[in-house]
């Protein structure tokens, strides 16, 4: 296709040809940026009710997090409203799609703040966007109870930011503690995708392994969503690790483990909380089959027992929300920290408002810590409301158990080792062993 007709056409096409690749690259880049554009959406009508926003990815690779967290927010709000609300106010859970990406999350947060006069709190922002969005919510004086593990927030100084899970680096230490104290493996492969959320686990895993005399046989960073990871597979196999620790998105994991199995290279693998979700499990079953997935894999995540009064209240509320058509497939969320955490967070926000006698974040924000340090232990919003009405100070110990906010507004808990798919608890890892991996 390259005949020329005359010098003029030759020159024209020469100029065009020189510009075209640059133009194509530029426009292709624009397409990707546009494809990643914000999809912010507030759901639910306010009708004068107070708005608690679930600011999470509802699209993109981490979109299942948003669904999990909304499944926690809705039952909490239902229970609070059923118990008469807070100071005459009722609540609703809205959603805003952060897409899990700062470039999308920032305009979404700005739009949320600009258009939500009844917004009183943010719940459960996920990893990867905190550095970009927390300053915005903090400046707007909106209380933000997050589940994001971004490492810079290990020593956070934002007044309105609270985190009821440990940082992603602490998760890394928990993997090392698990391998050291609960398995016979000593040669570890660290395999994480190159996104900020996954990479947050790596420093803790490397330092924890060193502290516990485990050797790192391979330390691989994977580019996301490639058509083949065979060369990575070969590098891994050549390093002869006994066990792998991995976080990736579902598609990357599907391709990687499909090829690993093809090369007879499947090995015991520890998954992180970043792999929790139906999408990841489906991709893995599709790639290697259910039997191998159950045989080789465990998932180490923050642990909340599926028992006790707090869990029963939560579970009943979840099932009621499902019956009302607000939540689908509730069994998926009943024992997931990603749903339990926002449930607890909404309860803490409502109880803090009660104790502060105000729904204004400026007034109630300091009470977030106070409702977890009082003298009367309560396990539900209704119990807390009754105790406060009786003039007592409360200590909310919800589904996740006791909350202990430190000076940086962080609270760490116990870790559990679970079988994927069945979510069967294999063992729990006490905080002392994780602290040991941290060298404390």
């Amino acid at each position, binding site marked *: 296709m390259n005949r020329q007709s005359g010098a003029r056409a030759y020159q024209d096409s020469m100029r065009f040809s020189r510009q075209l690749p640059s*133009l194509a690259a530029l426009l292709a880049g624009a397409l*990707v940026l546009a494809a990643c554009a914000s999809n912010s959406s507030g759901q639910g009508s306010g009708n004068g009710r107070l708005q608690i926003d679930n600011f999470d990815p509802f699209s993109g690779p981490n979109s299942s997090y948003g669904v999990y967290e909304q499944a926690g927010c809705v039952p909490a709000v239902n229970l609070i409203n059923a118990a008469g609300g807070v100071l005459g106010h009722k609540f609703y859970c809205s959603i805003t799609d952060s897409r899990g990406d700062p470039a999308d999350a920032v305009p979404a947060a700005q739009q949320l703040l600009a258009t939500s006069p009844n917004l009183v709190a943010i719940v459960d922002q996920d990893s990867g966007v905190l550095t970009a969005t927390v300053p915005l919510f903090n400046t707007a004086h909106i209380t933000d109870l997050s589940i994001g593990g971004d490492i810079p927030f290990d020593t956070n100084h934002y007044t309105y930011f609270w985190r009821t899970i440990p940082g992603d680096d602490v998760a890394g230490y928990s993997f090392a503690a698990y391998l050291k104290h609960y398995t016979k493996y000593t040669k570890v492969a660290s395999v994480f995708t190159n996104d900020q959320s996954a990479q947050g686990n790596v420093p803790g895993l490397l330092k924890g392994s060193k502290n516990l005399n485990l050797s790192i046989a391979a330390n691989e960073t994977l580019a996301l969503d490639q058509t083949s990871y065979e060369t990575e597979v070969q*590098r891994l196999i050549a390093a002869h690790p006994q066990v792998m620790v991995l976080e990736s998105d579902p598609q990357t994991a599907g391709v990687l483990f499909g090829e690993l199995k093809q090369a007879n290279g499947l090995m015991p693998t520890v998954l992180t909380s970043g792999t929790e979700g139906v999408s990841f499990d489906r991709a893995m079953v599709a790639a290697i089959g259910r039997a191998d997935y159950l045989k080789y894999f465990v998932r180490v995540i923050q642990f909340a027992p599926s028992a006790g009064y707090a869990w029963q209240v939560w579970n009943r509320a979840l099932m009621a929300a499902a019956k009302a058509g607000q939540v689908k497939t509730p069994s998926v969320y009943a024992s997931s920290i990603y749903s339990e955490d926002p449930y607890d967070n909404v309860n803490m926000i409502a109880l803090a408002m009660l104790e502060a006698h105000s729904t204004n974040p400026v007034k109630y924000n300091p009470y977030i810590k106070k409702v977890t340090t009082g003298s009367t232990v309560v396990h539900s919003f209704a119990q807390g409301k009754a105790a406060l009405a009786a003039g007592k100070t409360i200590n909310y110990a919800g589904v996740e158990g006791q909350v202990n906010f430190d000076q940086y507004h962080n609270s760490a808990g116990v870790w559990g080792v679970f079988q994927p798919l069945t979510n069967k608890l294999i063992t729990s890892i006490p905080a002392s062993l994780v602290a040991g991996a941290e060298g404390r």
Partner: protein
Amino acid sequence: MSLIPGIIAFGLYSACLYAIGAVGFTLQFGVTNVLNLAYGAILTSAMYVDYAIGRGTPSIWFGILIGAVWGALVSVVFGRVIVMPYVRRGASLVAMAMVTIGVALIVQYTLEAIQGPFVYSYQVAQQSTVRIAGVTMSEEQLIIIGAAVVLMIAVHALLQYTRLGLAMRATAVHPSLARSCGVSTERVRTTAWLVSGALCGISGVLLGISTGSFDSVTGASFFITVVVAAIIGGVGKPYGAMIGALILGLVSSAAAAVISPDYKDIAAWVILIVVLVIRPQGIFAEFSSGRELIG
């Protein structure tokens, strides 16, 4: 164990996936001069259609058929209903590209709405494997390589040995002259959309089956690589796209093995930049056509 056989085998495998998409993209551009940035979205839509019709059970041959039919149909409709009216009104290259971006986003967000928050995963049965030169490849991967080779030969035959191919090449180089020589450029451009769409759909289905799981942006990410392969080879040049895809597949595979997997994508972009510095028109292209948009 040496990494070289693996680099070659799986670099080739990746190249085959890239090549099908890149040839389709560049072929349509070469003939119509429309930079179709909705290509990735159409590619993704083919995955959804195949998944829906096959009820989540992958079948490469059936999938190729579905992908080809769907991609061809959507592309022809896209070319005639959306692109052509703009071209008739004298839309510029950039304006036309922006329209295709708009269409891409419409398709992507529609798929996102259909899909919901979870990715789709094929139900994959245990596959038989073949060991070649120390590298284990699945039957599926070998079929994909084979299918890509057959498709590339078919494109070559179409362009070199048929009257239609000759007409396509003539239209690509000089549409006015081709028209004055009796070539029905309207028929040619429709055929270009059709062939390009078929390759786009096939590329999407094979990508979906090879990765096992996909969502509404899977094709958009892959499309960038497809565009890079096309540009490296020379936009509008099907043979260039094949070579571009091969270079990309092998180099990114080698970068992952020799340096670090983290450098896979970086290597692809470095190649692009180096090629554009040395040969702005791409490796294969002498000079692209494109004096006028012909939709």
